[in-house]
């Protein structure tokens, strides 16, 4: 097989840029010059294998050059400019907060394929969330399937391998009613993307036998040709298997799927904008059956201590996986020994292919036969392809021919760090004009908000997923009094009793995302998303002091100072909130360059910061759900309602301009959430639901129809920060608000416990199945059958 030598030593700047573009290397001129310098020093031109290896290793996807690079950030506020210089944004913000907090229950943070925290004395739980945006834009089914397949492998590749217990998925799609004529040529219609993505996650997740238990969907025209597909997996791992160590002399074993031309340039492709000519070979196709066999067998091998390290083949393929494992030692690989799907692959293609379902292991030579036999017995293909050395070199052979010979120190430490400019200018934000409505309009508005595409039921998606497989999902994505009556549950709870015999403990998974707020201020968006993820977890009974977070940035082109500025603000918010709440981030990922160019015009996605949360609870018996339980119980709204309708669902429905995006008082939030946790722990609450998109009235409607109960609400009892109209009060999206249901015998204890916290007793649960709302001050009275509210909520997304 032919290996080409690439002329680089004598190229000028223009030619270097052209070489990078033509070969889809996605390397900047500065980076190409660094590569040129390295090869000038060793007095030869690189081979195609070497150049491709550098491009993969230095890709945005693998090295996170923007978040770990130099940034000069200028903030313009009130006519004044303030400049802050970051040498490594990630280390100085999110990671720094985690280090400062130094929680003893964090086992492995930001260093492996997933974050790991304590479950009990002997086990940890691992969580990772990844994105697969560009592949899903091109081939929605295959792109999302390999997205979930990839993140499952991250969990298999953390430490010596965790057993996956649950999946999560969060999507951002374009508007499904977009006219076909508005969709750019060569791109798929947003509805087709949405359907394909859901099917891909469904088929892969269901076939792997892992329940998909938590998620969310956000629709906005900004994601028309560039959807966001976040996939997450949580797993359980014995603590004594949570570290890996490669030793020189260990053998390199590749296990699972064969290597083909799938996903060539996937990693470097993630650093380019999409256009109609985007590369065909960037598409990967998944095979969950192969991955399931790998999963089952490798966990047996793990428990028999047959290997010392493992990682998954993700972006960059073998190049990244073997390269990362051998970074500290060095390695030699014979590419001719890698099992192929078909003949004809060039050595560089074998090395960087992103063919799916492959894991790479470091195996002590004494276990060579044992591990091969184990995989063979279970019909899983396993092949030794090389050895870890102690010379700090990457040596690749194809049979007898040497096709790459480079220093690991250059590959992993040689990427230059240019300084990027980032700018943020404070916008003038005004309150909206007072929103006045009649009783009739209000009644219609409640249904319109429930039917809004970003509020309505996701049961069409949720019910395609198996969220029960493994039999450990004790709080499910939809909860209610029956299949017909269900509402959106804030968080999922997994009780891993089949793995940890006799345990009462559970794992709570939740998320928070709201790109709408980010259109105005990414700091507030990030803060609200963090609180939303925590609120959701607290609603089922999680301890807010024991929550761990994952960050996922999806942004546009960071070479544009305004876009990078909005990203810096989000990172600052994550740092501030992490320290403020004393909750660490344990893992994260970024996906940048989410832009697409059609006919010369560039479209950028609205920035999206997904926060995923995981926490361990002591007793799953104490968890509660969001549906109302019994007539006669009191309903309280916890928290203050402020005039915060900026970027709210109601502002979109009523099409009014201006409005304040919800702010956050961390001290109040922290105290409130801790008290709710205590109340749930003491068994004082029957149900709990947070107020988010659509505000209080949406949340109470969901609780009512999920429980098949009526509610009587005194809207005048809602505590507000200022004089507000009834519509502003009911639809405000202020943070730190929860609706709770308390039975008569617990009212006194409840009110005592919440002394010092803003609590409004706003009504009670009834048996008459009507939502009845009164405001004497506004002279408004609304009576609506909860079945009509439920219908409005369910009808929008039934494809």
């Amino acid at each position, binding site marked *: 097989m032919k290996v080409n030598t690439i002329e680089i030593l004598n190229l000028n700047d223009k030619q270097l840029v052209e070489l990078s573009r033509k070969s889809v290397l996605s390397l900047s001129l500065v980076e190409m010059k660094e590569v040129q310098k390295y090869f000038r020093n060793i007095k030869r031109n690189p081979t195609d294998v070497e150049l491709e290896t550098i491009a993969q290793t230095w890709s945005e996807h693998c090295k996170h050059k923007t978040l770990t690079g130099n940034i000069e950030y200028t903030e313009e506020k009130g006519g004044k400019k303030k400049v802050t210089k970051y040498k490594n944004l990630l280390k100085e913000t999110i990671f720094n907060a985690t280090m400062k907090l130094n929680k003893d229950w964090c086992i492995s943070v930001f260093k492996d394929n997933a974050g790991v925290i304590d479950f009990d004395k002997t086990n940890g739980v691992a969580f990772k969330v990844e994105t697969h945006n560009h592949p899903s834009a091109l081939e929605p089914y295959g792109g999302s399937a390999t997205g979930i397949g990839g993140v499952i492998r991250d969990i298999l590749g953390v430490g010596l391998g965790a057993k996956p217990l649950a999946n999560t998925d969060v999507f951002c799609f374009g508007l499904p009613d977009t006219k076909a004529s508005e969709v750019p040529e060569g791109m798929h219609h947003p509805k087709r993307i949405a359907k394909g993505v859901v099917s891909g996650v469904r088929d892969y997740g269901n076939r792997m036998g892992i329940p998909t238990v938590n998620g969310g969907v956000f629709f906005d025209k900004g994601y028309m040709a560039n959807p966001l597909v976040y996939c997450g997996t949580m797993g359980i791992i014995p603590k004594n298997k949570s570290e890996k160590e490669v030793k020189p002399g260990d053998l390199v074993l590749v296990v699972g799927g064969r290597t083909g031309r799938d996903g060539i340039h996937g990693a470097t492709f993630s650093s380019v904008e999409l256009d109609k000519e985007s590369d*065909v070979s960037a598409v990967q*196709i998944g*095979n969950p059956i192969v991955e399931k066999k790998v999963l089952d067998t490798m966990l047996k091998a793990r428990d028999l201590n047959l290997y010392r390290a493992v990682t998954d083949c993700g972006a960059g393929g073998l190049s990244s996986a073997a390269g990362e494992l051998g970074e500290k030692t060095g390695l030699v690989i014979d590419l001719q020994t890698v099992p192929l799907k078909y003949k004809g692959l060039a050595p560089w293609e074998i090395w960087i292919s992103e063919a799916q379902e492959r894991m790479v292991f470091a195996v002590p030579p004494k276990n060579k036969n044992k591990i091969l036999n184990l995989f063979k017995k279970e019909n899983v293909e396993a092949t030794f392809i090389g050895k870890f050395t102690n010379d700090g070199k990457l040596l690749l052979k194809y049979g007898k021919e040497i096709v790459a010979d480079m220093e690991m120190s250059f590959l992993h430490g040689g990427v230059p760090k240019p300084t990027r400019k980032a700018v943020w200018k404070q916008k003038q934000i005004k309150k909206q004009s007072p929103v006045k409505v009649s009783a009739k309009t209000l009644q219609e508005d409640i249904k319109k908000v429930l039917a809004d595409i970003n509020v309505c039921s996701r049961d069409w998606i949720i019910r395609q997923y198996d969220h029960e497989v493994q039999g450990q999902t004790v709080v499910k994505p939809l909860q209610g009094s029956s299949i017909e009556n269900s509402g959106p549950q804030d968080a999922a709870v997994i009780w891993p009793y089949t793995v940890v015999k006799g345990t009462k403990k559970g794992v709570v998974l939740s998320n928070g995302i709201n790109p709408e707020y980010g259109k105005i201020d990414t700091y507030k968006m990030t803060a609200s998303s963090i609180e939303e993820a925590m609120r959701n977890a607290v609603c089922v009974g999680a301890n807010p002091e024991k929550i761990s977070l994952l960050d996922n940035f999806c942004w546009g082109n960071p070479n544009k100072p305004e876009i990078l500025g909005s990203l810096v603000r989000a990172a600052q918010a994550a740092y501030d909130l992490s320290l403020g709440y004393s909750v660490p981030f344990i893992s994260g990922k970024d996906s940048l360059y989410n832009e697409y160019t059609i006919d010369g015009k560039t479209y950028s996605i609205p920035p999206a910061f997904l926060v995923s949360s995981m926490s361990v609870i002591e007793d799953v018996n104490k968890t509660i759900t969001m549906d109302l339980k019994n007539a006669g119980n009191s309903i309280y709204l916890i928290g203050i309602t402020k005039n915060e309708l900026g970027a709210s669902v109601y502002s979109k429905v009523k099409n009014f301009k201006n409005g304040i995006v919800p702010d956050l008082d961390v001290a109040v939030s922290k105290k409130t959430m801790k008290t709710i946790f205590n109340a749930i722990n003491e068994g004082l609450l029957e149900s709990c639901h947070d107020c988010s998109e659509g505000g209080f009235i949406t949340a109470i409607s969901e609780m009512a129809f999920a429980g098949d109960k009526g509610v009587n609400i005194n809207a005048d009892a809602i505590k507000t920060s200022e004089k507000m109209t009834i519509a502003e009060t009911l639809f405000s999206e202020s943070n730190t608000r929860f609706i709770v249901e308390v039975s008569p015998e617990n009212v006194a204890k409840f009110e005592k416990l919440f002394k010092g916290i803003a609590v409004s007793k706003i009504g009670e649960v009834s048996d008459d199945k009507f939502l009845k709302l009164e405001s004497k001050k506004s002279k408004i009275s609304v009576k609506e059958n909860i079945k009509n509210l439920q219908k409005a909520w369910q009808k929008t997304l039934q494809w």
Partner: protein
Amino acid sequence: MIFEIEIKTKKGFVDPQGLHTVSDISGIGIKDITDVSYVAVYRISGNITNKQADTIAKELLSDKITEDYTVKQYKSLEDKKLEKNSIEVWYKHGVTDTVSESVVKAIKDLGIKEDLVVKTGKKYCLKGKNIDDKKLKKIATGLLANTLIQEYLTK
């Protein structure tokens, strides 16, 4: 020899994929397609007998209770004639076809040891008013085939 085994839902049973396709076609603005019948197609190339092809269709690829199968045989694909008002979708050469990999393995498990090449395809048979090539192509490219990884045939 090339065999194409077609599997479709028996009369009297619901064809969910067909029904969804009718609804999806309407969703892309084509309102006069009234019925779609979905057919899973397995193309098997290799040295097997008609009886073996029939065994594969009957024992492996179809559900005896809810599905019917048809085995078609060609010396060359040039002999194949497409059904009127139908769209066939196939993976392009080189694209991983995971179902076909499983079928190859399952055929071996049936005791048929010949080396075979299997490709999987989907056929949609449409009924309705004013079906012409332009409309079929619009349905194929707008809904049924992702031309990045799949090719389609219409008649």
